[in-house]
């Protein structure tokens, strides 16, 4: 098998894997590195469930072949909080009832995180557009948008 060594950082920690080049980032994260916080929803890049940050941008891990991450930074939802403390988005998702079955939530949080980083004071419609690539079958999206809006308002309030 055409295996090669790939190094990258996962949530700030350097990792090296020896895998065939056709493997996806999603498979390597789950099967080789035990990063089970990354969920597979469709395997075809539609649902956004497996969203991770590649450097700073959200990507569907099921569409990324592993050589593409060489030398780059991968962030999963485990990389969001600091130690045991929840990231404000995680806190808001929990208290606003944004997580029902919760399966879409790791990917949704990362999309929201990257969006708010670049757009600190979005309107509700802008948030709605920002998460359009992350499907949720449980919530109807309202409480997810509520949670993201609340975090944005909190930041605006702090000036």
């Amino acid at each position, binding site marked *: 098998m055409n295996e090669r060594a790939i190094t990258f950082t996962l949530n700030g920690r350097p990792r090296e894997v020896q895998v065939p080049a056709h493997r996806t980032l999603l498979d390597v994260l789950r099967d080789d590195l035990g990063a089970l916080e990354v969920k597979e929803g469709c395997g075809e890049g539609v649902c956004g469930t497996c969203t991770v940050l590649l450097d700073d941008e959200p990507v569907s891990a099921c569409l990324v072949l592993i050589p593409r991450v060489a030398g780059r930074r991968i962030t999963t939802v485990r990389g969001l909080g600091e130690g045991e403390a929840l990231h404000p988005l995680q806190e808001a998702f929990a208290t606003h009832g944004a997580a029902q079955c919760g399966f879409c939530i*790791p990917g949704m949080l990362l999309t929201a995180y990257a969006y708010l980083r670049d757009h600190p004071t979005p309107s509700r419609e802008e948030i709605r557009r920002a998460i359009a690539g992350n499907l949720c079958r449980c919530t109807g999206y309202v409480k997810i948008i509520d949670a993201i809006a609340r975090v944005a308002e909190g930041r605006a309030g702090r000036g």
Partner: protein
Amino acid sequence: MARQVLHPPKERLRVVGQSVTRHDAVDKVQARTLYAADWEMPAMLHGVVLRSPYPSARIRRIDPSPAQALPGVAAVLLAPDVPHNTLWTDVPGQTSEVGALRARIHVLADGLVRYQGEPVALVAAETRDLAQQAAELIVVEYEPCAGVFDPAAALQTGAPNVHDEGNLLASWRIRRGDPEAALARAAVVVEGTYRCQFIDHAYLEPESGVAWIDSDGVLVIRVSTQVIEHFRAVAEVLGLPHNKVRVIGPYVGGGFGGKEDVTVEVFLGLLVWRTRRPVKMTWTRQESLLARPKRHPFVLRYRTAATREGELVAQAVDLLADSGAYAYLSALVLMYAAVTAAGPYRVPHVSVQARVAYTNNPPTSAMRGFGAMQMVLGYESQMDRLARRLGIDPVDLRVRNALVKGDRLPIGQELDTHAAVAETARRAWEALGPRPSASTPAHRVGRGLACNMQPYGRIVWLHDWASAWVGFEMDGSLVVRTGTPDVGGGQASSLCQIAAEVLGLDVGRVSIHIADSALTPLAGTTTATRQLYMSGNAVLQASTVLRQQILEVAARMLETPAAVLEMREGAAVAPHGPRVALAAVMKECARLGVSRSALAVYHAPAGDPIDLERGGGRVFPDYSFGAHAVDVEVDTETGHVRVLRHVACHDVGRAINPQSVEGQIQGGAVMGLGYGLMEEVVLDRGVNLSTLFATYLIPSSLDVPDVEPLIVESGEGKGPFGARGIGEPPIGPPAAAVANAIEDAVGVRITELPITPERVARALGLFRDP
């Protein structure tokens, strides 16, 4: 006669009625929840299913040897390798059998395949890739056969038989009064035919599980399921005693009825038993879309008669549904449809004829709303047409005919709790406020309303029950154990709130263990909008008994009669302030040998099977009522429909956790909009063309508005504290409300789902049909 239960008034509740943050939500936002596919075992194999590419074919030969020869393959199983190759797909074992409604499927196809995607062989191998490779090496020679792909065609004489016993799977008739005579002499009769489609549950978590043989020889299956009691089905297939199979149900990544039937658990059982090694099986999204049971499509023919003043006099309904290739729960789905087909209205003369037929389409089975939801398009389109015909306001027409407590349904069942049809219709409609204006001259806006009724709790002759154990630890913290699967609706956390309420604790002091068929008292299925109702009553009952036990000990310690003691803030408290902490009471309990726990079994009101046609009885314990009102904007140049506002109002009796209730309403309404506007499993002579998430579209955040939930708390329901079920009801009204709003906007009536731009454009005459 059921005992009259008096519920405490809302103002006296401390934990129930609060939007507490769910313990599972805190886990889920940190991705700590280990879903079925996140479980691993040492030396675990990976299983895959080989499925039929044909919707109807004879299997002439299968040769597994090329697969068996592949290094790393641990097992290849065919039909003859399955000890008992029959899966009974009726409701599982805690209940009585359903007699003639028992329906069989083969675990693995034996000689014939009847739908595309039917399982033919199983493989277990060292990796998933290897297992997939091996499955593709199995040689199967098929001889394609004639098939039948439409339920009406299936019932014609000479149609190919899907099963030997013929294509009519089940039929139900309901009759009340003399509908034909009433139709003949009625002032107004409205007729309509409606069609709804196959759709998929499309939960984000595909079917998955891991199984192993534990050190005690028990086969353990940890599987994403709404029904842990399928352990019995696995035992029967393997020929094992029921008590040698255990199912553990982790938190589920969405179910919606799609994880009500058996999914991977029987296959896992077979592969584990053969290989004696742990096996994981996770279906791909594409496999799930291809082969899992769908929602039943129906053709609904309605004739509705009324007086000139708008009083309903007759409803005559003919229903035909597609069961696909196997029965699964079709007969029961059809019964839900038949019982609710006349709608949440008083109608003196009713006839319902309902049939469901086998075809070579994918099987259909349970999905949120279970037959009752498909009826809403029929009866609510009819109500709107009637209102238009009579020149009566659509809300007034519904209010005038709305069921109220004390009315009888066409089957004869008397409604013995509040029926909030009129109230929810008015409130939803009024909440929309002033009409919006169109965004461009090419757009038109319209407003629509739809009411619905949905049973909660299982059919009364299934003698449903649920059990729960509640016990204090020595430090005064509380443990709840119950077999309830949590599918994401907050089932477990609501039970914690109920126990905390009764026992005067902060909800954070309660730990709950759920969904283990060996270790938690069985609580039945998380289906049929029954879990809060059933397990909630069991936890309430156990907590109430436990409270009494504890207070009697506390009474001695405080030298105060138990009857005047309260439990709050983790203590037993006497009227004038003296209190004793629960930890101290537990110590005293231990010293006295008084039990610190209680087990309760809640039995739902039960009854004997009734003859639906003759009526005279109860089919379901109770119903939830609601109404949705929408504003839509129709693009008259493209036929595109956008929902601008959506108000969803439901009577939930008592909201145990208002935030969870809102979540159910918003999520259910959006799923209903997906059904109404975009979703369809497209089939071409039994071949599924929607096997990708790229082709099977569910609503994204851009496709739907913020659904505004309105919670009515009548205080009258059969669940704990007067709660009614709310899991399924919100999916019912949206499609009909949108269809009604479209007619209001552009004057055309859409009768077929989904309401795609193409259908609207066609109705608007934008296409010149050849």
